[in-house]
């Protein structure tokens, strides 16, 4: 086995086993800190030993055993230093094994705990990326442009709250499950979106590491909860969005809008997988949630050979469905953009005007307005709207694209 093979095996084990190791240790020792540290030590030991000793036949079992030993060592050390009651407290487990059926997986407990609604959304994101995805604190800090010490504090504080307030380590009851799953999906969608349209002047416009991580975690949840429609919907949405990633930023670092993208550059395998999931949800015949509808809209776009072949009436019909579910002005804005293709820019502009008081601070609102005004030949108004959009946009590639469009106005 070459050095590269061993490195591959360690990377693979980290992807496949990290969450499982942390989850099983948390269950056994009742402490996220102990679990996290022992898991990290076990992987460090693997990096040290596998190149010389070879990759063990069952890497997951080796890592779990090693991590267990590290955790017990740590607890013994701490007990010697005082805190005699510590061990009893750590091993205390008042949650008898429940029949969980198809979703009986330690990793689900971990995910639901990290995404608990009593934690701030940023804390949920950070904790999920550390505990479930296995990203290091410096990696997470970099991803969200936060100083490392601040990210460290955010995670430490979240773990301390879980312990002090006794946030339970379990899969929620059937009655609470839908609300809690949507909380988990919100965290994953946030990670994906931050990767897809990264903010900040000095960051890459698309952060593939974050989109890939979000997809990997959503695949995991999908494997654990294969019957949940919204999980499938979110995965499909991410795949169909990720499929367009390379076509989305030009060689000059400009954001390329959907109508101008080179559709030949789209990833056909991801699109096929996304379409398969959307069809599967359609066949289920259950009223779709917002992720499923968003995925269906994405499926319509990715089914068209070029922008003129897009079935806009289908897109608008799906947005109508979405507006009923989610009255957010951003959804209404996207619906209006689709209406422009179906009924013309004049009609869409009237719809946009009604959203102004709620979206005046949102760059995409002004960008959409600028585009409609341009198509109506109202260059001066269009220019003013582009100015506002450029002012408010936080993504480098998007600013570049808006600036070009503005400067092309006659």
């Amino acid at each position, binding site marked *: 086995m070459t050095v590269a093979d061993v490195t591959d095996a360690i990377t693979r084990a980290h992807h496949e086993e990290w969450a499982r190791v942390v989850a099983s240790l948390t269950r056994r020792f009742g402490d996220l800190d102990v679990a996290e540290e022992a898991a990290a030590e076990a992987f460090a030991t693997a990096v040290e030993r596998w190149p010389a000793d070879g990759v063990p036949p069952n890497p997951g079992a080796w890592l779990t055993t090693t991590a267990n030993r590290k955790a017990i060592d740590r607890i013994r050390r701490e007990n010697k230093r005082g805190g005699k009651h510590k061990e009893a407290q750590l091993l205390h487990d008042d949650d008898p094994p429940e029949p969980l059926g198809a979703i009986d997986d330690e990793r689900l407990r971990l995910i639901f705990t990290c995404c608990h609604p009593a934690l701030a959304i940023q804390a949920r994101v950070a904790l999920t990326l550390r505990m479930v995805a296995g990203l290091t604190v410096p990696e997470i800090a970099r991803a969200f442009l936060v100083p490392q010490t601040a990210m460290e504090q955010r995670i430490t504080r979240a773990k301390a709250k879980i312990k*002090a*307030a*006794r*946030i*339970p380590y379990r899969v*929620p009851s059937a009655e609470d499950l839908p609300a809690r799953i949507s909380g988990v999906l919100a965290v994953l969608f946030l990670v994906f979106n931050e990767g897809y349209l990264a903010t900040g002047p000095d960051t890459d416009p698309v952060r593939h590491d974050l989109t890939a991580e979000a997809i990997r975690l959503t695949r995991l949840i999908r494997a654990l909860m294969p019957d949940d429609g919204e999980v499938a919907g979110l995965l499909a949405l991410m795949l169909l969005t990720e499929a367009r990633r390379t076509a989305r930023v030009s060689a000059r670092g400009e954001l390329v809008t959907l109508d101008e993208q080179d559709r030949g550059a789209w990833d056909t395998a991801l699109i096929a997988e996304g379409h398969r999931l959307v069809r599967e949800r359609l066949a289920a015949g259950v009223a779709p949630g917002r992720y499923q509808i968003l995925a269906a809209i994405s499926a319509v776009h990715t089914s068209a050979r070029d922008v003129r072949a897009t079935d806009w009436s289908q897109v608008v019909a799906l947005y109508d469905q979405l507006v009923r579910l989610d009255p957010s002005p951003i959804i209404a804005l996207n619906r209006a953009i689709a209406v422009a293709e179906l009924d013309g820019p004049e009609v869409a502009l009237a719809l946009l005007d009604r959203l102004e008081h709620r979206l005046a601070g949102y760059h995409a609102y002004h960008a959409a307005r600028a585009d409609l005004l341009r198509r109506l030949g109202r260059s001066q108004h269009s220019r003013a709207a582009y100015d506002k959009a450029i002012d408010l946009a936080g993504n480098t590639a998007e600013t570049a694209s808006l600036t070009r469009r503005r400067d092309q106005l006659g």
Partner: protein
Amino acid sequence: MQYLVSVISDHDGLATPDEDAAIDVFNDRLVAEGHWVFAGGLAAPSSATVIDNRGEEAMFTDGPFLESKEYLAGFWIIQAADLDVALKLAAEGSKACNRKVEVRPFL
């Protein structure tokens, strides 16, 4: 595990008869299901006195230690297995007394 459920009020005035009745129903439930430890409503913050006896002699100050628009109007102490149970009860408590509540675990 015990949790303090603080009732936070942002307007003057005691509980209305309807609120009182809803609180009674909620309290009965806490007792019946074994969550009850203690509860009470508090008089207006203007009736508070702050005492500092860390120095030579005790200092008495008229009024609450923090002047703010929102103030502690009462509290429950509940027994709950974990935060999920406590949050659910607190949500019902908030509905019953028609005010915001804050949940904090005891050490």
